[in-house]
């Protein structure tokens, strides 16, 4: 029991191993500048996809405003470093907390909304955040903020990505996470079994927003520049695509899909317009052949493919 089971130790060693391997490759210059950019994007996309999956895949609330949370994290963190001269760690923390607060605020009024209506409301929320950024001179209006110091280093990125995935995984595999799953599966039954569905819906929004904000802070401090247009609904949509592609309710699916999409985007970089066509065609193909996403709601674990929902051996259908 506890932390020191052999499985946990094995995972820990793999995580540490990856860190030092990549670190060495960076030191030796084997990873090119271009690849570095994509490595950073990969980590940020993993954080975005897993945190959105918590809201959409695990709690069943179709939300389309994740870029809004990312924007809040990016802007608030940047204000703290650039304008207020605070340390990076504090800036990231405050940015994430600000996004989490927005998660509570957006979570509460949208509780009465379901499905399409919730999607539209959250889409609107994302656009409002973007619109606010355009109109606030203090954060540079439409031009955004330039000259942000590059503080997102490989150790920061890697630590934050691992932390996010582990935190979300631990949450889901707890009684609190099961309460979220119950909300997704059947809200009326969940309430009838003593679960405060309001609380858990808002909680999912809050946690998802927190990590979305974290991704924003990391993003801002790698790419020097943030603009309102960086956080348009297209980005929300991109993140949702990763969640759907990986499988709603599969954390490993989100990680794999975030990696795959980052990779595809990088490989197709030179193809300009054609890139969007190939990208779209790939998505359509996946949705035709694997409508449940790459992983469905199963997880990739050490003992190969264990369905998180239980074995699908299918004794007698329903």
């Amino acid at each position, binding site marked *: 029991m506890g932390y020191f089971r052999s499985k946990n130790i094995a995972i820990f060693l793999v995580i540490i191993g990856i860190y030092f391997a990549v670190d060495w490759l960076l030191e030796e210059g084997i990873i090119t500048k271009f690849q570095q950019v994509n490595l950073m994007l990969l980590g940020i996309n993993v954080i975005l996809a897993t945190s959105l999956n918590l809201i959409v895949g695990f709690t069943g609330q179709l939300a389309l405003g994740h870029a809004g949370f990312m924007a809040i994290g990016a802007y608030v963190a940047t204000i703290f470093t650039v304008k207020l001269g605070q340390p990076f760690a504090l800036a990231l923390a405050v940015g994430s907390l600000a996004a989490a607060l927005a998660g509570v605020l957006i979570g509460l009024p949208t509780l009465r909304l379901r499905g399409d209506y919730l999607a539209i409301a959250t889409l609107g929320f994302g656009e409002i955040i973007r619109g606010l950024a355009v109109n606030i001179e203090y954060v540079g209006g439409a031009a955004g903020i330039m000259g942000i110091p590059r503080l997102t280093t490989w150790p920061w990125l890697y630590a934050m990505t691992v932390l996010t995935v582990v935190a979300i995984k631990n949450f889901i595999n707890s*009684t609190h996470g099961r309460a979220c799953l119950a909300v997704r599966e059947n809200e009326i039954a969940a*309430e009838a*079994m003593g679960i405060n*569905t309001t609380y858990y819906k808002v909680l999912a929004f809050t946690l998802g927003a927190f990590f979305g904000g974290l991704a924003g802070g990391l993003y801002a401090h790698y790419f020097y520049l943030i603009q309102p247009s960086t956080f348009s609904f297209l980005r929300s949509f991109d993140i949702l695509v990763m969640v759907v592609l990986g499988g709603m309710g599969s954390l490993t699916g989100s990680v794999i899909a975030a990696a795959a999409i980052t990779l595809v985007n990088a490989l197709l970089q030179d193809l300009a317009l054609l890139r969007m066509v190939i990208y779209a065609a790939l998505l359509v193909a996946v949705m035709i052949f694997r409508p449940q996403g790459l992983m469905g709601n199963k997880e990739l674990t050490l003992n190969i493919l264990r369905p998180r929902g*239980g074995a699908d051996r299918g*004794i007698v259908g329903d």
Partner: protein
Amino acid sequence: MALLETKDLTLAFGGLAAVSGVNLTIGEGELVGLIGPNGAGKTTVFNLLTGIYRPQRGDILWQGRSLVGLRPFQITQLGLARTFQNIRLFGELTVLDNIAISFHWHSRYSLLGAVLRLPSYYRHEGEMRRRAEELLELFGLKQYAQEKAKNLPYGEQRRLEIARALAARPRLLLLDEPAAGMNPQETQALMDFIRWLRQEFSLSILLIEHDMSMVMNLCERIYALDYGQVIAEGPPGEIRRHPRVIEAYLGEEVALALAGA
């Protein structure tokens, strides 16, 4: 004091009085039946008792305290748990998780304990798992523990719903047509099972059943509902011979016969 008491309970959908002026009393340890033809308002009474609907008139008293205005989860936490006429399991989750979810509000570890995997997490998860397995064993569902709930055969799904309701540790169990879709042998087995449940968990039970014979055999006291009103109340012997009950059920048979003809 009665465990549960309703006074003048009333709810209309548009112009349709689904439940009107219903007075029920359920004592500690009683097994009470609620019968009536289809559309009589039985399920609506359950939805009122469990807070899914709010009554337009009247009151619901749980040990003297009003339940009106409470959310369903709060009512469950006070000690009422239910099953649904059209099964509402957490289909994509395992049988074990279905049970564990009902233990949720008894669980005693925080969000932080979960995310940081503090010792409290391991202790309470282990405990919940052990208790869930015990319950599945009692219900003969242990071999399905890791199966998705939606993949269970129909009868087992019904049983799992009862097990899940019990995991919330209620004092009053509300069963909505638990024998629906069962053959006579299965119904007989279910009756024995319900009797045993009441003993084992010292429960009070309110049972909705369309099938008269089952309720007659099982319940000590019966309320008969028609068009949202209580038309008769008493022990099975009286209900069986009550002219208005016979009329209500006869009316239904005639309607069915006409529909079939």
